[in-house]
């Protein structure tokens, strides 16, 4: 994907942070830990880099410190470059500046103008899917599209995807509009927050939106000016995860215990890069019993673990039992404790003999660095 900039914006994700309980108190959604050793945004950036994109700009939102700590100098993605590389754009804090995706894009016109690339791939990092960007890009170029929206056909009998964006298309599969799924249909075309645009088209839309003052997010602007452009669509046929609340997030993690899903996310698009931690291998003691779990490095497992995602450096004590849970980095379950349907944030711990049980439709969350003890 030569000649293409990678842009990561939050769209309207910032409004959803409250859906994640204490997990997003100090981090944006895209920084949520995922899959044992990653953050959500790792998948987005890695997918871009693996498809040959060498300039990536991230519109960070206000909670910038965790982002800077993680993305930092861009080394894990080989984006620590002299020319192009990784650009982080926190919001401007002038009293005069407007807020929202459009205003943020507008505030970085220089970045777009200085880049030689003529096309843009824009992704919202709360959608996880191993999209074959090369194929989508080839189609975008071949059809000389002004923009190509990427969607996934979703059968949703349970209304799991109510309020997701939906592409409305005519009988010939031609793009008509972007609506919102209210669950009235069994199947709908879910817009998965990935769009290819000509750079000049993006800048035109952004400038118009600023002039007209009607649109806060790019999606709104696309709807407003859709008749002026040649808009195509590309269907993604693989597995997609949408992370917009705690339940989604919990399920998406545990879905990785399915071999097909983890194969697709971890391998099909090339390696997923992340900040390395230099943990040694994980040690399983003579008494450990581990079933159907994904376990990262640096752990010491002496208890029983079932259906779990275990992040780096976790300790599980003797006779402890952990089920259907997500144990983030450096969390500790002490001896004889029982933990079920729970998300333990980084550095949290469950005291000896304590019993914690959440519900699978509303997992219990142990806040970062919180140490729970028996009364």
């Amino acid at each position, binding site marked *: 994907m030569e000649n293409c900039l990678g842009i990561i914006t939050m769209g309207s994700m910032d409004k959803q942070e409250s859906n994640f309980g204490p997990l997003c108190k100090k981090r944006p959604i895209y920084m949520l830990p995922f899959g*044992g050793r990653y953050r959500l945004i790792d998948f987005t950036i890695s997918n871009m880099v693996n498809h040959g994109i060498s300039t990536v700009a991230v519109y960070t939102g206000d909670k910038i410190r965790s982002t800077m700590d993680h993305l930092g100098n861009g080394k894990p993605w080989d984006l620590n470059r002299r020319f192009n590389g990784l650009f982080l754009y926190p919001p401007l804090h002038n009293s005069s500046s407007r807020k929202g995706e459009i205003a943020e894009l507008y505030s970085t016109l220089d970045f777009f103008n200085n880049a030689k690339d003529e096309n843009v791939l824009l992704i919202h990092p709360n959608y996880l899917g191993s999209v074959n960007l090369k194929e989508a890009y080839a189609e975008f170029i071949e059809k000389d599209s002004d923009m190509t929206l990427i969607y996934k056909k979703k059968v949703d009998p349970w209304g799991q995807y109510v309020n997701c964006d939906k592409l409305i298309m005519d009988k010939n599969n031609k793009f008509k509009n972007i609506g919102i799924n209210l669950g009235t249909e069994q199947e709908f075309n879910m817009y998965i927050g990935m769009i290819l645009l000509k750079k000049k088209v993006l800048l035109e839309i952004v400038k118009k939106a600023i002039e007209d003052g009607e649109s806060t997010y790019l999606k709104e602007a696309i709807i407003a000016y859709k008749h002026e452009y040649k808009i195509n669509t590309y269907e993604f046929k693989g597995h997609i995860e949408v992370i917009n609340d705690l339940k989604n997030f919990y399920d998406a993690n545990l879905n990785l215990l399915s071999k097909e899903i983890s194969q697709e996310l971890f391998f099909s698009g090339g390696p997923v890069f992340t900040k*390395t931690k230099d943990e*040694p291998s*994980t040690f399983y003691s003579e008494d450990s019993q*581990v*079933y*159907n779990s994904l*376990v990262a490095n640096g752990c010491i497992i002496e208890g029983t673990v079932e259906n779990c995602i275990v992040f780096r450096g976790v300790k599980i004590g003797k006779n402890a039992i952990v089920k259907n849970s997500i144990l983030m980095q450096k969390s500790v379950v002490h001896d004889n404790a029982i933990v079920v349907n729970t998300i333990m944030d980084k550095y949290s711990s469950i005291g000896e003999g304590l019993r914690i049980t959440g519900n699978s439709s509303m997992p219990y969350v142990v806040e970062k660095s919180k140490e729970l003890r028996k009364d």
Partner: protein
Amino acid sequence: MVENKVVAMLLAGGQGSRLKALTRKIAKPAVPFGGKYRIIDFALSNATNSRISDIGILTQYKPFQLNTHIGIGQAWDYDRNVGGLRVLPPFTSEDGGRWYTGTANAIFENIDYLDELNPQYVLILSGDHIYKMDYRQLLKEHQEKGADVTISVIEVPWEEAPRFGIINTDQDNKIVEFDEKPKNPKNNMASMGIYMFNWVELRKYLIKDSKNPNSEHDFGKNVLPDMLNDGKKMYSWNFKGYWKDVGTIRSYWEANMDLIDPDNELNMYDKDWRIYTRNRNLPPHYLSRSSKVRNSLINEGCTVKGEVRNSVFFSDIYIEKGAKINNSVVLSDSIVEAGAEVNNAIILEGVTVKKGDKIGEEGDGNIYVVTKKGFTIE
């Protein structure tokens, strides 16, 4: 402007021929160890953790994988614009090219590199050993004694002493005699091949040694005895802790097994002295419903559906349901098929152990080296 500048010179050209199949394609320092490392990672990480900012790596034998592993030194934080890590292979000049003919000669040929850096001390290291050492302690000792050379020594079992270079000292640790592989050792303090030199002195003796046609240009055999002869101030420093030269197949297997020993002295989980290595960017490992893993180290990217006991696994290994692995070291990208059983083995990279194969018996005392062509017994 930083004081007490130490430059480390890491000898990484060794062939390690006694490691046989393990060193067929790579130099000994590049041999995988301990689930995710290569042997050289230990010396390199010690240097990083000791805050040594310049390190030269002397390579010669089959350096490709070693060079790929080291890359620009990023894993060890040596990817610096000024200083950092420099790979130093042999080179040519007007009078033609010269291969490194001995440990001292390798340093002699790179005097230009050292002169450019102009260090106060030069620390000679070997890329062949498994240990964790804070070289700053060695430096401190060296400075306090006002020594010309300080040699790091370790207590070895008396019966093994004849295999080592034994250092005889007075009560103040001043060296009085070198005893290379003595039949009747006077003590059991062995040289670890780790030397802290004053650069000015070392430089003189390297030049002197280079002119001696009878020299093998080796530190232990030539340069150090010569300095002692001249009455230079030479001290030993007594290192305490885990140290292993994994020179043979058996010692290689044993050193790996040490890591799953509960009394293991080499604490790999110590976050204040991490061992760094190049990252393979693999996802976590997966243990299935049918897996049974006991007293073992498992690394990233593995999928275990069978039974694993007392073993050290590298990355991206696939163990099918019903397969059994005991007391073994399994290198990356291997597959053990359903119904196969492997005991006391070293399975090399990318090997597939076929359905129904059986290698070794528990406690038969052999070590099996499993390659793509079959296995050999040690």
